[in-house]
């Protein structure tokens, strides 16, 4: 379970982004972030050491429909 709290969000807002958040706003953001944090934690272990984001562009071309190439 995500350990993100609204206090943490308020702290990040003030230290990293230099603005303050109301409690209610921080609470809403916490609720939005929690499932993404959990999902990120679940999938992160499947990342290979040699992978990088640009591999996607190459895959897109490689996997492209062959008929289109005529």
């Amino acid at each position: 379970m995500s350990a993100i709290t609204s206090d943490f969000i308020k702290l990040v807002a003030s230290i990293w982004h230099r603005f303050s958040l109301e409690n209610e706003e921080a609470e809403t953001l916490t609720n939005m972030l929690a499932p993404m944090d959990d999902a990120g934690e679940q999938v992160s272990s499947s990342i290979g050491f040699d992978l990088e984001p640009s591999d996607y562009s190459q895959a897109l071309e490689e996997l492209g429909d062959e008929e289109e190439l005529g």
Partner: protein
Amino acid sequence: MTDFLNFDLCRTANLVSSGELSAVELTTASINRAEALQPKLNSFISLEKDEALEAAENIDKRLQKGERIGSLAGIPLAHKDMFYRNGKVTTCGSKIRSKFKGDRTSTALSRLEKAGALYLGGLNMSEFAVGPIGNNVHYGDCFNPWNQEHTPGGSSSGSGAAVASRTVYGALGSDTGGSIRIPSAMCGVVGIKPTQTRVSRFGLMPLSFSFDCSGPLTRTVRDAARIMHIIAGHDRNDPTSSQRKVQDYETECKKEVASMRLGIPSNYFYDDLDTEVDRLLQETRKIFKDLKVEIVSVDVPSHDYINLIWAAALAAEASTIHRKWLRERPNDYGPMVKRRIEFGLYQPATRYLEALTLREKYLRNYCDTVFSKCDALLTPTMPVVAPRYQDLDVGGGEGMPALVLMLSRNTRPISYLGLPALSVPCGFSSKGLPAAFQLIGRPFSEGKLFRLGNAYQNATEWHNTIPEIVK
């Protein structure tokens, strides 16, 4: 006599090119309809009457001289107000950019203009292209031509409404998680989100550079194929655009579909489906069977994580772009839009990069699992028809994330994967609201999707149904 406004783009383009209909007469009718419907639909943010008429006169003169122009000669189009035009205001549906003048013209717009298309104006949209509903706190909500109590869908709300109301023959929209397909489905028009990198993003307002795509909304599949053929292809101003050759999509439309294979997902896409949408999708399957398309059941990989990591990556990119304004002008955003952008500020860079790094693995897995069994997937574009505005939480409150997820659950995973997806209307609910199916293919298979979609429209009449508001 303005029946020609009800014709499709290809037929009308033939009338103009052959001299049977002047571009000025056509444009005048289009402007008149835009003005008449604006109080009811609020599709337009700006209407460029003088510019459009001047361009139409020029087209007529060139045609009279026997000049060959292009396949969109004299056709009035209008576009989501986020395609830059050098020196002209492009609002992006926002207060913050209400006076912004681009220093470039979008490649997609330049290509359409070169093909003879006319620019009628900038269309309403969700602020900064964020949100699947179609509301806008700065320029007023856009309304659904089939029933004005209902949302037209977003974020390309004005594009859906202007095409469905037979005001323009086509409109460009943008799609980062469903923003072309959702308003297409809700407004009963065709819309295609192309393969990532198929259409140049140069001069398109950025929301998320990893997921942003632009594509057309039209009344027919063939019309969409014509526009796609013009705007697709490599652009040196967008180095991420693919160098692949572009097929002649209109020719693809004419090809046989018998023996093609359509996959029906056995999981995810048909979960929690509205009963009326379910019925219309079953009828769609029958139509394809009658066309001798083979129907196969396909297990699709889980989308649950994909949806969440897509949202995380999108928000990280959007909040990077918007960080300055989020600090300096937070009150100039609508509440829902601000909330959906700003949560990207609170994620570590590692989460963002993980989401992008995994994209390749998920794409390969999807192609291996799904497209080894079929040419395209057939899914509902949305699990419901257009909701009423009054039933929606558009204020950015607690219920907002669930609402957004419900409306875009069938579109956003495809944006993460970067696959092409074509939304085609397939009938109406008992309350007269359109439903639509989505054809999803492997990368760069737009031609096959157009072929299937066009065959469906040749066998049905839904695309010829006209909203009461323009009868």
